[in-house]
């Protein structure tokens, strides 16, 4: 790994490069939102970002803390109701890419954001599906970005909140009006794509300085590597500068985002 950038920056920049200029992207909060906005501020100024709060074609100056931050509405072309968002714009077929994060992912890109353990007696209760179950099936394709670890990359997810290709890789077969599903997974170690036939994830590109062994150790199953394994291109200085400025702006905004007339209100409503 370079001393010029961190593994997290490598992940965000690589994820941002996956988005092409002019595409329409339904953005999940967190890492996907960071990557999607970096894309908009660098190589893809015409990328259309949509958040599930109904904000269409939004251009936030700082990254939102929540999916419905005022910043998203104020910088959007227009804001529609949430039913319109999901019914007309997503289900209606206007989204090229759904960009998602996750708590768990398995070899068939099934995502779990519901819970760890048994549904009725969870060990850890997670927030749940939100928009993801339908984003993953109604967008033309899905990108996933998440930090690589055995906690996240598991042999079998505890719960399929959001389908990738199902428990056996065939969940999309014969289903009409369904998107292609996950087409790439970007982590802080590598880039993976589902095998065209079997749909299980294959590492196609290692980030500079990352070894196969590191990826194996961070993955909860016997991960496959492409015959021709590429080296992911490094971030350039412009991308790093813009990403760091974006994050610094965001931190300042959320630290001081409270109006002066409310500071004396404390926790009172």
């Amino acid at each position, binding site marked *: 790994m370079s001393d010029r950038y961190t593994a997290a920056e490598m992940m965000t920049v690589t994820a941002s490069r996956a988005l092409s200029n002019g595409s329409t992207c339904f953005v999940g*909060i967190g890492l996907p939102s960071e990557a999607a906005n970096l894309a908009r501020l660098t190589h893809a100024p015409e990328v259309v970002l949509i958040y*599930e*709060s*109904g*904000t269409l074609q939004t251009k936030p100056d700082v990254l*939102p*803390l*929540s*999916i*419905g*931050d*005022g910043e*998203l*509405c104020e910088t959007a072309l227009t*804001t*529609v*109701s*949430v*039913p319109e*968002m*999901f*019914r007309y714009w*997503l*289900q209606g077929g206007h989204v090229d890419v759904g960009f998602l994060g996750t708590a768990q992912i398995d070899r068939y890109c*099934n995502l779990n954001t*519901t819970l760890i353990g048994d*549904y009725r007696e*969870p060990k850890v*209760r*997670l*927030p*749940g*599906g*939100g*928009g993801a*179950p*339908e984003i993953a*099936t*109604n967008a033309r394709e899905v990108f996933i970005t998440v930090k690589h670890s055995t906690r996240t990359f598991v042999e079998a997810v505890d719960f*399929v*909140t*959001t*389908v990738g290709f*199902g428990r056996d890789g065939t*969940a*999309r077969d014969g*289903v*009409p*009006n*369904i998107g292609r599903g996950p087409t790439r997974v970007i982590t802080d170690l590598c880039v993976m794509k589902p095998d065209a036939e079997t749909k299980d994830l294959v590492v196609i590109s290692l980030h500079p300085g990352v070894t196969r062994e590191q990826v194996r150790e961070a993955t909860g199953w016997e991960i496959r590597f492409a015959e021709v394994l590429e080296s992911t291109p490094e971030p350039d200085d412009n991308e790093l500068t813009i990403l760091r400025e974006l994050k610094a702006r965001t931190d300042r905004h*959320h630290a001081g*985002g*409270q*109006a002066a*007339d*409310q500071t004396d*209100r404390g*926790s*009172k*409503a």
Partner: protein
Amino acid sequence: MAEFLSLHDAVARYVEDGATLAMEGFTHLIPFAAGHEVIRQRKRDLTLIRMTPDLLYDQMIGAGCAKRLIFSWGGNPGVGSLHRLRDAVEKGYPYPVEIFEHSHAAMACAFEAGAAGLPLAVLRGYVGSDLPKVNSQIKFIECPFSGERLAAVPSIRPDVGIVHAQRADRRGNVLVEGIVGVQKEVVLAAGRSIVTVEEVVDDLAAGPNACVIPAWAIDAISVTKHGAYPSYAHGYYPRDNAFYKAWDAIARDRDAFDVWLQDNVFTQGDDT
């Protein structure tokens, strides 16, 4: 026809123990003040419905108001878990809460179907998800025209719907601006509706396509300044992100939560 009532009187009149209650606002315009009034009046056995329970339902569940929750994303946005909700679901404290868990698309459709007076909503959803295995409200039907398999969920028609909005005019017509979520759908889907507003004005100054809810579609309006705090009201005040972060520590600890509830809910309100 909308009647202007104090928040205390509106909640006392329309929210009964055991009611199904939807309090909406998608991150924006969350009716916190109304929820606190429900807590103060010690309403019990409510079926709470909200796409994103947020801190509001964390507080109401922690205060013991709920026996059932219908939701689609139960986190503290940008922060982490809702610890009072988790305590109720994982440990039954202070009471067990039965959950019916959906996706956002399904709940949005269910509110819309409720507003439309239909018994169910149909969507192209839940393909390959385990949610239908754990939520008996999710079924699949065959389209009678194309044969396509589609998801169906019951429409949401709560006994009471409560939303917050920026302003009402003196006749009780309400304007909602910014992220409008499912505000209008909740009011129209509910048997009774309460709208809290930041202020009352002579003229709504609404454009022809603005999100306006007519007075005759609303039961009660309560003027409640800062009624959505610590969420935000577009054009009035921003979201208090610092409080959302601070909530994590308060809600993790049962005693800290009880102290917070005492200081910020039970000793506040119209009649204190």
